[in-house]
């Protein structure tokens, strides 16, 4: 893969990867770092990546980077086993505070599911393929997540 081909790849997928990463992390810095790490890994692995599966590869690597980053952020807050206040949500637009709060109550896999569905517009078939679920399985799981979000977002 030449650098111009890589540039086209970045142009094409960068917005989607940012939406996925931000949807999972709820944090701009972590999202940016995760996507940057993904592109770096993609460039380093450019000869090994199956072009036909590039989208799934990028999504997977980005999601894994988000997981690692979130774990690091959690551990970074910890020194000598003492509890410190949770990170503030100052960067969240006031209009989205309740939504961000509801999303933060989901586990990472469910946030990934929500991001794939509502951030990237993937179908249940595509989500299932990405997460190793059947299409019906993805739908059922999404409905459970929506039920939980509906309870959290009381104004809905």
């Amino acid at each position, binding site marked *: 893969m030449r650098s111009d081909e890589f540039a086209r790849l970045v142009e094409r997928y960068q917005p989607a990867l940012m939406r996925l990463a931000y949807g999972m992390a709820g944090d701009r810095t972590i999202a940016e770092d995760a996507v940057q790490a993904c592109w770096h890994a993609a460039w380093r692995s450019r000869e090994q990546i199956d072009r036909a599966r590039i989208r799934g590869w990028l999504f997977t690597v980005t999601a894994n980077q988000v997981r690692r980053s979130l774990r690091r952020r959690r551990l970074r*807050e910890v*020194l000598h*086993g003492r509890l410190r206040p949770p990170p503030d949500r100052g960067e969240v637009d006031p209009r989205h505070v309740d*939504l961000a709060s509801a999303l*933060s109550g989901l586990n990472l896999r469910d946030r990934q599911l929500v991001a794939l569905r*509502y951030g990237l517009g993937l179908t249940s078939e595509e989500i299932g393929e990405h997460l190793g679920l059947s299409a019906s*399985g993805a739908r059922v799981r999404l409905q459970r997540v929506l039920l939980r979000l509906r309870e959290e977002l009381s104004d809905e």
Partner: protein
Amino acid sequence: MSEPRDDFERRFGQRYAEYLGDGPRTMDTRNLVAAVTRDMPQRAGWLRMATLGAATIAAAAILTLVILAVLPRITGPVGTASGSPQASAAPDASSAPSASSAPSASSAPSATPPQPVAVPWPILAPSEASVPSSLDGQDFAAWTLYRPPPCCGSLLRIATSAGSSDRVIDYPDFFSAPEFWPTPAGPAGGQIIYVVTEGRTAHLRVADARTGADTELTSTDLLIARVAIDPSGSTAYYMLFDRPTSAFQGLWAIPTSGGQPTPLVSVPATAATATLAATRVHVEPQLAVSADGSWIAYVICHTIDCEFHAIHADGTAEPLDWSNFHAGDQMVGIAGDLLIGAAECPQPTCDGFILDLRTGERWPLGGDDAPFAPEALIAGPHGPLVLGESVDYDQGRMRVDALDLTDGSRSTAFEATFEPGIGEVHLAEGHPVLEYFAGADLPAGWFLIARFAAADGILLPADYSAATAGAALETRLPFMESPTR
């Protein structure tokens, strides 16, 4: 393809799109491409860091040097991890497949001796164990599973400290070749249980680290989702699931010397397990065997809840309510009748928990004032020790705390420093989150440490060492290092 949506889903979708639209900044992809294709060494936040200016970076470097120079005098010369394996704490590390002798520290990292404290959970009776002062002359087995970035497959190394066997099983093709999944179990009695999942077939295998023997125990078209081994190394346990439906297909046992697998928990067999056979959207199973082999605990978590069961090694079980195990909880280990678990929470530090397998009661491990996040369970000099790590990534400091289950006391077991962005230090064994795994049947009082180094933008385990709780001894284990490709 469009799918039907109800009102809430439609409104949620709109709000979520606005939320994402207001969140991520637009990034200059030209700069991103230029930086990546120039093969810039990637570190956390490197692109943003580049904008901070040389002065800031230089100041940080100076500060780091000062910290590295001063810290050993404060905490005891426990170790400094850098990006290169050569910079390990152990100065006398050799390339021979044996444990290099204890090198580094001269004083215990904990200034104050541990004091017994009142804890709500039932403490365990002390059991004295001999803790060797060094690993010289000790013969123990170990394995490491090396999973580099998703281009290169996996490497499983099985070795002993005495060098009687050192073999590497390599599956280099990420896309089509077999995978070592799930995570291996052991060593116990020198035996390591591992699974090769190849297409739709899972092969359960046992490797003897000392003789080098490698035997297939059984294979199945079902999914082997978790494996465990009893402390003597004589019996392997594994959980089976149906591939299309994710329905539980039983907990099975098989002698590691060979023989027929037998179901410890059949499905469907009893009312208690019938629900487990139902089709699942998504399952996250866990499996653990107690340190004395008398308990086997297994968990099947799905989207928002978990089914937890604990049985005796003969397959019998008490009819208890196990609703105290929650989605997000992770089993760390079982000592006596107590299961030690880690939990998920929105706070930076999540308190672990203890679950009494006789009663189903659950208690917080450290409590609100002093939460303790457990990551490993080892044998200590007076009884089981729970280990938890604390990491300050900004300062490049890592600490392992030990909680004594015989009296509730806590003490510092290990401290190390590392260069932020270049390397990291972590507890290696049984780490529930990190993508790299290792196991070693170290003698009582010793535990595994992994030093990670940045490579290709991702932190990889560069070398391993063993440390003693409280004695500040650390021994590098070069025979566990991942082979170079």
